[in-house]
């Protein structure tokens, strides 16, 4: 009885990936007459990130400028993609599989351009809204849909990655079936242009709420408790007494109309041992909180200069790594801190010497 159950669950696991494969590959062979090449191609396993490029777009030579030199057997590949019957006998072609890979490359390169057009962006936006590309694996992004992108625009270098508009980071796809999809077929520009075009999908670069509220959604869903549960027990207590703590503080909107307009999931993980935060000065202490942090208000963004240093009064306390600054800081913080700062400084110097 039990081995059966085990086998069934195993089957269920396998089923997740197989049906697509089976149906698409069989469908491809039996229905090629009715199915266009493009339809067949995007229904292949792992090709579900691709959107359907309009044939009109491919037929317009202007859109193909510069691609001829990149794709071998250009004419044959183009005919294959557009389902055009070859005019004369294809004597020069040694093998159909070569044409197929050429057609794939051609389609990918056209796809990279097409998704930057209005129609392409719209097609991708529809699918983004349905989370067709998956969700961000990061816990504190709370199921934020992601969008495919590449790290390079040249094919054959890197596989497709997924960009999360909440944490503005890129992740590898969860399933290995996408490991054969070239990132260049989506391109480096696409995610950025996509969220420039649809700023409503992009998270604001600041928290959007007054500081005491750690998470805008802390009352609603159970999953939404994640950010607040560790970070702010006191404010949660407040939340319990007041049924709608989100009511009074109105969420801010982004004054920059071209920037992200969505209220971010700005929760962050705080490492704790037995409930106590791990000190930043511990050897194993947190070093990366800045990576997911964002300022409380929009104006805070302007307090940093082009080199990523603080401006104005804060700059005097923080600027550079000069000696005078260190003294100022240690004056405030006491003897222990001073020791640490000195150590830091000497470490930095050592490193610099090593590099030289």
């Amino acid at each position, binding site marked *: *009885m039990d081995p059966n159950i085990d086998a069934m669950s195993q089957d269920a696991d396998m089923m997740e990936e197989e049906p697509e494969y089976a149906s698409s590959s069989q469908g491809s062979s039996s229905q090629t007459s009715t199915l266009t090449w493009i339809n067949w191609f995007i229904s292949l396993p792992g090709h579900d990130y691709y959107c359907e490029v309009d044939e009109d777009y491919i037929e317009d030579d202007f859109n193909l400028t510069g691609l001829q030199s990149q794709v071998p057997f250009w004419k044959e590949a183009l005919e294959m993609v557009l389902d055009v019957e070859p005019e004369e006998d294809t004597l020069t072609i040694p093998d159909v599989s070569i044409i197929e890979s050429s057609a794939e490359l051609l389609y990918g390169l056209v796809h990279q351009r097409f998704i930057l057009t209005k129609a392409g962006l719209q097609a991708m936006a529809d699918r983004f809204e349905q989370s067709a590309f998956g969700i961000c694996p990061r816990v504190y992004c709370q199921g934020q849909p992601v969008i495919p992108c590449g790290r390079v625009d040249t094919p054959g270098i890197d596989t497709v990655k997924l960009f999360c508009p909440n944490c503005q980071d890129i992740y590898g796809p969860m399933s290995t079936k996408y490991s054969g999809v070239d990132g260049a077929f989506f391109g480096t520009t696409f995610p950025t242009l996509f969220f420039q075009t649809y700023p409503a999908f992009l998270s604001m670069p600041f928290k959007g709420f007054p500081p005491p509220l750690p998470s805008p959604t802390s009352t609603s869903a159970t999953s939404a408790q994640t950010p607040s549960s560790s970070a702010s027990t006191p404010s949660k207590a407040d939340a319990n007494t007041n049924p709608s703590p989100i009511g009074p503080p109105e969420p801010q909107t982004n004054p920059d109309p071209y920037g992200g307009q969505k209220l971010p999931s700005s929760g962050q993980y705080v*490492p704790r041992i037995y409930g106590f935060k791990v000190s930043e000065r511990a050897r*194993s202490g947190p070093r990366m909180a800045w*990576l997911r*942090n964002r300022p409380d208000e929009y104006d805070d963004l302007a307090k940093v200069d082009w080199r990523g240093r603080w401006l104005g009064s804060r700059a005097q306390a923080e600027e550079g790594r000069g000696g005078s600054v260190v003294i100022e800081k240690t004056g405030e913080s006491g003897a222990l801190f001073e020791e640490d700062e000195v150590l830091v400084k000497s470490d930095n110097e050592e490193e610099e010497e090593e590099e030289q």
Partner: protein
Amino acid sequence: MNEYSTGSDSEYANSWITWFLSTKGNEYFVEIDEDYILDRFNLTGLNGEVVQEYARALDLITDQLEDEDDMDEDLRETIDNSARYLYGLIHARYIITTRGLAKMLDKYRSADFGTCPRVYCYSQPVLPVGLADAPYQKAVKLYCPRCEDLYSPKGSRHGNIDGAYFGTTFPHMLFMVYPHMVPSKGPPVPGPGGPGGPVGHVGGASGLPGYLGHGPTGIGSISTAAAAIKAEVYDPKLFGFRVNESAKLKRWREAMRDE
């Protein structure tokens, strides 16, 4: 969930713990020493009020459950579920002991818990962590020591494990005890561990001299800025140009980092 049965021979041959660990979906767990379970002190606070059929569940874990055949299905199912639950709760305590940490470290080294999905973490092995120490609150998450963030496990198989079976403390305790295992924040340096491995830590573990400059071992007293300055961050670009707002946010984060 109810796969345990006394019916088949192979399961008789093994101990309950061995069977439990070999079950699909339980890959994150380590084997708890029997001595640890038998020491009543380690079970303080776990009793009939917390765990249904506590005594018999404990007997089942330690393979001392008698007259199983006389029980009806329901009771056996209850005991079985309680045994898993109890094992999980003891597991959370065990893995922050010296021996438990060592066992978990071995699993971490072989990336049994999976790798970080973040591209710029270069397949850094991750560690399981709970978001609450009380059971039935949150599912298990994965902590990446390189980006110091939490991710959800890939499959639902692991996504449904209770986070309390690992606890909120575990990964940080592990790096507290093994600070040389803290990976460097920057891109992996092809180390003696061989090319291609998911190996920020392998080279560091061997403690080669001269590796300190890049490696995890040198972190010691280095401040946040010094340790994190090598961390790579995704830089969104539009036809090669940065976009005003995301660039601003990036600079702000850098300022926070260097603070």
